């Protein structure tokens, strides 16, 4: 157990290191002077500012030294540099400011997806190949194939423009405008984001449960005369929840990518919309900072999921 933990942590550190190298290398891929990466090509080149940037980023040092300094600042001082496109915004301040929106969206999406996926998957397994299973399976196939930005636009059109129930754009912070206002602005984006995940989760629960329902202990539970609902949700769902946890972890990356688009559709002040605006203003430092941040979160979440798996499943713990 301890050895396994150690191995997993070592791998985590190695992966994070590699992720940081790749993200750092992005600025080197740009042709010409690295100053081009920091100052966008459209801004005026004041020699004084250029010299100041050269000094601050140590651009005259070699790549290894620059990488070491960058990593040092990032890890020890939580400092990913200062954007020169948006007049001295610190990258980390921007991230801190925008993380709550993205995190809330991703979390809500997972909750919504699971809330619908588990009953649908269980139903599908219980009524395998009957009309209700075929209907929900087909529905999930379609849900899986709708790109999330299309779902977002259509939900926005239906609920905000046609029915005029919810706002189409914008974000109300819980701390300022309260929970209800916040939910009004977050429910549509979270639902749009949840749709694909729901389809993936429910397919998994369904196929997992079909296998579980063949097991002897299910037969004996039924023979004891336990009601079907009890057998399904108490006995059969338990083992399926393990693979569900894994897939939630793996799909977290898709979810983080998804928030980028969804935030753009609903104009939400999250990490994703900042990433996009940084891309369009060629603010490479901001792009670099947000990318490394998102990748780090993703890697850590996946490690936590792995560890959780070990804690939950006694079979793995023993081996």
């Amino acid at each position: 157990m301890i050895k396994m933990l150690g191995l997993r942590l070592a791998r985590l550190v190695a992966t994070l290191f590699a992720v940081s190298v790749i993200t750092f290398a992005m600025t080197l891929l740009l042709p010409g002077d690295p100053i081009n990466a920091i100052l966008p090509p459209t801004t005026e080149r004041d020699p004084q500012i250029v010299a100041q940037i050269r000094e601050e980023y140590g651009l005259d040092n070699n790549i290894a030294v620059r990488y070491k300094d960058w990593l040092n600042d990032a890890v020890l001082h939580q400092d990913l540099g200062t954007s020169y496109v948006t007049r001295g915004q610190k990258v980390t301040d921007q991230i801190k400011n925008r993380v709550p929106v993205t995190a809330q969206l991703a979390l809500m999406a997972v909750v919504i997806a699971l809330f619908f996926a588990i009953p649908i998957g269980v139903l599908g397994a219980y009524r395998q190949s009957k009309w209700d299973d075929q209907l929900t399976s087909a529905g999930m196939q379609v849900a899986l194939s709708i790109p999330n930005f299309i779902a977002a636009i259509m939900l926005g059109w239906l609920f905000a423009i046609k029915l005029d129930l919810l706002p189409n754009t914008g974000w109300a912070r819980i701390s300022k405008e309260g929970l209800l206002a916040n939910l009004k602005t977050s429910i549509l984006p979270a639902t749009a984001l949840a749709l694909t995940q729901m389809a993936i989760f429910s397919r998994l629960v369904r196929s997992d449960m079909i296998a579980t329902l063949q097991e002897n202990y299910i037969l004996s539970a039924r023979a004891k005369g336990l009601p079907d609902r009890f057998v399904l949700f108490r006995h059969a769902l338990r083992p399926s929840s393990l693979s569900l946890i894994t897939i939630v972890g793996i799909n977290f990356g898709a979810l983080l990518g998804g928030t980028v688009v969804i935030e753009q559709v609903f104009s939400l002040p999250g990490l994703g919309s900042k990433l996009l605006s940084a891309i369009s203003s060629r603010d490479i430092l901001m792009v670099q900072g947000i990318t490394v941040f998102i990748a780090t979160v993703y890697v850590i979440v996946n490690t936590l999921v792995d560890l959780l798996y070990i804690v939950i499943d006694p079979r793995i713990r023993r081996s």
Partner: protein
Amino acid sequence: MTLLDDAKSDTSSPSPSSNTPGKKKRQSPLAVFREMPILVKLSALWVLLIVVGSIYGKIDVLLDDVLPLQDPILQTNAFNPDTLEFGTGTPSENPSLTHWLGTDSIARDGFARIVHGSWVSLIVALVSATFGIVVGGFLGSLVGFVRGKTETIIMSLIDVILAFPALVLLLAMVSIFEVRNLYVISLVIGFLSIPAYTRVARANSLAISNREFVLAAQAIGTKPSKILFREIIPNVYQSLLSYALVAAAFVIVVEGTLSFLGLSVQLPTPTWGNMINEARSNINLTVWPVVWPSLALTFTVLSFNQIGDFFQKRNAVRGSAL
């Protein structure tokens, strides 16, 4: 030589002595089509329609509009210097006989734009599949067969790329390029497709490397490179092809997303994604210009998913029967 030939023919049937039912060499596409459930059949027809449509549109462009399809970029209400008259179209028209899917906010023909828009999606999917199958397929087959240090090094590299959320890495990479055209977009997406294919190929290669025909080839002293190219890779490719269909669905969504965000090929080239984005600003007035490209995109993704699922199930049944 004869022994080797035997070992080779083993790839289609497990052991030379037993006559397994799956021995039929290669089914004609029509026979496979008949095997499909009705939904998969419809999906295959839709994909065929899209492929034919996109090629038709491309030929139309190359031959200077000789084929009966409207110009996707022409604003049908614009002034025509030859006839000295304005066009007869109006913006945001409803579907009619002249404009089957109506017109968009600047009076361009919706149907023509949908037909032309499929080109970018399909090319990106094709390039990504080619990169994935050729490079990823080779790398995966190689490391699954030779194992050892090569495997550790290559797979760690692959894992690092997969450690990034796909769309975020793609956005970061696309942001490096100042000019974004079809070459750049399909190359970047193609490059980023390699890791997933490598993983799938490796898993298959690992399984195949332990099969009797590979062991037999090794036992008679066949050169490893020959085993790799003659035994492993042809078998890995079969399962990669069905994976490629599911991956194509994903890639089409990714390209659609990039287009939608305005980070794919430059305007005015029509793509389904940028059509949705352009039509979105007018959604208050009419929703249809958003709906058509959305449906085209969703149907295509759904179709690729369905066909991919069908072939994966079919391969799985075959594999377990061996």
